């Protein structure tokens, strides 16, 4: 797997990929980025927390216009995972982007999104219908 790299560091690759957040030890607020302190309570201690792969589509937009390097259309999505964490990603695996429906049940999946000059493969995550 050394020839693969996740698109972001909160995507954990391996046999069963998942997302991992920094969870505030005090108030349990979860963050995907590098933290200085908790935006909710100001706490400074964090634990690593595995995020559920199951999710519900709570909002989306079918994007037809983007920067030239971005392939369109795609379904930008805000999902709520089974453990109540909001995640931004794409809905993938739809025949037609307009098949996206608010409230649809989804599951995390990964796919290759590019290879660099050293032959390293980038792995992105998305959510597909259950």
């Amino acid at each position, binding site marked *: 797997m050394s020839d693969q790299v996740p698109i972001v560091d909160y995507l954990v690759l391996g046999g069963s990929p998942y997302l991992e957040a920094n969870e505030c030890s005090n108030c349990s607020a979860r963050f995907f*980025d590098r933290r200085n302190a908790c935006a909710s309570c100001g706490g400074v201690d964090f634990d690593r927390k595995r995020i559920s792969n199951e999710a519900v589509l709570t*909002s989306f937009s079918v994007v037809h216009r983007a*920067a030239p390097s971005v392939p369109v259309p795609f379904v930008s999505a805000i999902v709520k995972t089974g453990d109540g964490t909001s995640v931004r990603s794409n809905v993938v695996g739809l025949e037609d982007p307009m098949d996206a429906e608010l409230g649809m049940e989804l599951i995390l999946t990964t796919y290759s999104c590019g290879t660099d000059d050293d032959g390293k493969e980038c792995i992105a995550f998305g959510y597909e219908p259950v």
Partner: protein
Amino acid sequence: MSGDSIWIIGASMTKFARYEDQDAVDLASRASLEAMADADVSIHDMDVLAAGTLFQASTSMGQRIQKQIGQTGVPVYNVSNACATGATAIRTVYLSIKAGEAEMGIAIGVEQMGKMGLLSGATKAERNVYEPSGRYGAVMGVDGFLGTETMPGVFAQAGMQYAYENDGVGFEQFARVAYKNHKHSTLNPLAQYQKEFSMEEVMGAAVQSYPNTLLMCCPTGDGAAAVVLVSEEKLRSLPTETQKRAVKISASVLTSDPYVESGQVQPDVNTLTRNAASQAYEISGVGPEDLDLVELHDCFATAELIHYDNLGLCEPGGAGDFIDSGKPFRDGSMPVNVSGGLISKGHPIGATGVANVFEVATHLRGEAGDRQIEGAKVGLAHVIGLGSSCGIHILEKAS
């Protein structure tokens, strides 16, 4: 007229457009000179100047304006606060007067954007070697892979979240917002566009980020606006005609976005607007039912719809019914964005928060011409900038 209120005595805005033969300093200077002329005062009466611009925030805009209209040596505050920049400039002058450091001051908002297109979402240059960098350890630009970073998409998602949580909201309701604002703009000679479109045309226009079509998105453009503020004590020393035309700032509120769970993946434009609205209503003693007109931040049709609810203009969850009922049309019970709104009047970012105060003040003075809301006595101006910042001003006609 008693107490320590702050009043607007002069207001002006340039037509929003694309100016190839004038720069931002020209536009800001013109709006400033016209606002001071409107108040029958001069640059020598100003104790403070605040200048708002987003894309030229590091260029000493206020001092560059002074060098065109009068270098009097007074304090200048150059402010930048995303789409709430203009409201922040007004509030800066407001606070200077409240603090007793100034009796009179001018707040200016300006932007020159031209055809800037999408304001974000441009990916960083594709790397040849994938190495993690930044706060998320990203090895490449994630726009398009992990959702959208473009404004039409982000605000589409804000609207769709509302549709998920409430009944009676869909593509047609969002489209009707844009239909209304384009229709309103036909009466406003200061609007960037003054063209009416049918519902079919709005819904059939090129999809940018569903449900936002091109006609449901604000344009980029150029423009400036300025207002002159005075203390109540100073106002009493001014001519009777100035006092009659003065507009009271009954509330001036600025909020930022408090923590919410989903905020790290989707900007929360609701909570800070709700907080600002409740503060503004409490400070002013005015309720949403008292408002004769509202200018709110319709950067996209999806945004306007959810702000009906955030500002308390409709029943909780009832924004879809509200637009379907016709209430926010100019002949309805709660006219919203009679200027044409950002969707059609335009959105030169730094100017917007001053321009919507200009719009409300002009109606309260009874000077809005063809688009006048007759008998308007109380109005609200709202802007929100992603990041996030929300500015609300409640204005009242002099009694």
